[in-house]
């Protein structure tokens, strides 16, 4: 019988540690499929963040480095500057990238570092137990905003893709989602596009992916998908913010 679907060879057989309904697994798979399709597994270095995806290297069958909180873009810069022949991607959440690592991502983007950042935005700090992130929605309850995020006190959620797209240097900045097949197909295309630009040495590439965190949102996986569509996507609009000319 012909095999019509299989695990990408860039993924390992490790059992997932992610919670039920979490979309990290889908995003991991899309990256691994891309590495397979482009034939770059053997010259790729991933950089794991601090956060739920700190153990990402358990699932990818390629070289990996593990960063400190928010510093993945600096480490990726270090690798890519001394080994431009390696394909490098950072995999970062919103607490990691948009809060403590905001400086590193902005400057790496502005220098036009030739690596790819996959930015998983699920609006909370997952690993530490659901605290408020810079991307937490107004009135969203978290363990450090128990009455809901008060934007008078903490500001409005940061739209990272738009922020990076406002810089002149970075050329491919996009926001995608992975909550339903129609979104997943587009997200896959965007991730592959980002790696293709990197292979061609075109530009810094940034893919934000609106993700879910049923555990810390206090919702079921289905409720989480629904809430993402009704509440997150109108604010975090999907599509390309910037493409190379």
């Amino acid at each position, binding site marked *: 019988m012909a095999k019509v679907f299989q695990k990408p060879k860039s993924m390992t057989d490790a059992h997932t540690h992610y919670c039920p309904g979490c979309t990290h697994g889908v995003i991991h798979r899309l990256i691994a499929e891309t590495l397979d399709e482009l034939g770059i597994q053997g010259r790729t270095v991933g950089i794991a963040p601090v956060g739920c995806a700190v153990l990402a290297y358990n699932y990818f069958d390629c070289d*990996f480095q593990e960063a400190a909180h928010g510093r993945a873009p*600096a480490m990726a*810069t270090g*690798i890519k500057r001394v*080994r431009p022949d*390696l394909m490098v991607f950072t995999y970062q959440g919103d607490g990691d990238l948009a809060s403590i690592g905001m400086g*590193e991502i902005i400057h790496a983007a502005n220098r036009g570092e030739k690596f790819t950042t996959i930015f998983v935005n699920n609006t909370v700090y997952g690993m530490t137990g659901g605290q408020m992130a810079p991307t937490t929605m107004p009135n969203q309850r978290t363990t450090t905003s128990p009455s809901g995020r008060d934007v008078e006190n903490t500001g409005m959620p940061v739209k990272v893709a738009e922020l990076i797209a406002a810089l002149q240097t970075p050329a491919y900045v996009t926001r995608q989602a992975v909550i339903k097949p129609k979104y997943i197909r587009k997200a896959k295309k965007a991730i592959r596009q980002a790696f293709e630009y990197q292979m061609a040495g075109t530009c810094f590439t940034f893919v934000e992916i609106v993700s879910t965190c049923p555990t810390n949102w206090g919702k079921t996986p289905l409720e989480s998908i629904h809430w993402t569509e009704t509440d997150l996507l109108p604010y975090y609009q999907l599509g390309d913010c910037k493409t190379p000319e």
Partner: protein
Amino acid sequence: MAKILMKGNEAIGEAAIRAGCLNYFGYPITPQSEIAEYLSHRMPEVNGMFLQAESEVAASYMIFGAAAAGERVFTTSSSPGISLMSEAISYVAAAQCPAVFVNIMRGGPGLGGILPSQGDYFQATKGGGHGDYHLLVMAPNSVQESVEMVMRAFPLAEKYRNPVIILGDGLIGQMMEPVEFPDHLISEPSDKNDWATTGMDYRNSNKPNLVKSLFLVGNSLEENNRCLKAKYEQMKKEEIMFATYNCDTNYVALIVSYGTMSRVCRTAIDLLKNEGIEVGMIRPQTLFPFPEKAVQEAAWKPSCKVVTSMELSMGQMVEDVERVVQAKRPVTWFGVAGGIVSTPEEIVAEMKRVIHAHQ
């Protein structure tokens, strides 16, 4: 090769290139910015890589990434900048990557000043960042020795897969002295394919390499820390460096001093000798590992009545001196920490005072 006159900071940059390190990430800070300025034009000349980072934090993680990819890499900074890099240094040590850091010390704490200091002895030798780790710490007292130590630092970092730090000070960095560079590279980079993220295809392997500092499972953190500990014990056996001055006499007092301060002490010892007072000096060239046995033996010499730690700080190395002398001789401290280096006359006066007090 003939001697040339060169500023300490620039000589340090050149020494790294001569040691085969063609990758530099850095961030400007007085009194060491000349290193970055020098390398910004020198690295392109040798097909090397120079990048000015957005912060010391970022520079130190660029170092981590590049080192973890198996390439020879270094950065330089001064005291407040090293504080910012200390986070990454802890990670680099934990993840067992070779990298070289240079601290051209200025006065602290806080912004402190921009003049020479040795106020980062604790930071360099006892930690700086979090967790159980040590740096291999070398302290030059001249431009020539800075060059030699920088060139030695890279193979040492690779031998131990551990960060090495050169602890200079603002005077070493800013001073011009004649210097001679060895013509040849000290060493070829070591084999890194068994641990670094060099890319599986490039090393003909199907086994990924992972560089990390998180050890959650079972006893793995204990094991990693024991592995680090074993390296530090090996350093204590194999890497201690020190110099002596006037120690072949029956000195009545022993000075322990390093870096810039040791040069002033040398002059003071000559002045004391002219007056018929013999004082010896041990100059640690490695601060970690500390030359414990050498200091101890020199201190316990029957003629020696007192040991004085001379520092450009408010008394940091003196704690190590006290530790190894084990109360068998009185240990005193003398130092300044405001940026002005002591004069030989001040040291002569202090040594006369302590010798008189401990006769």
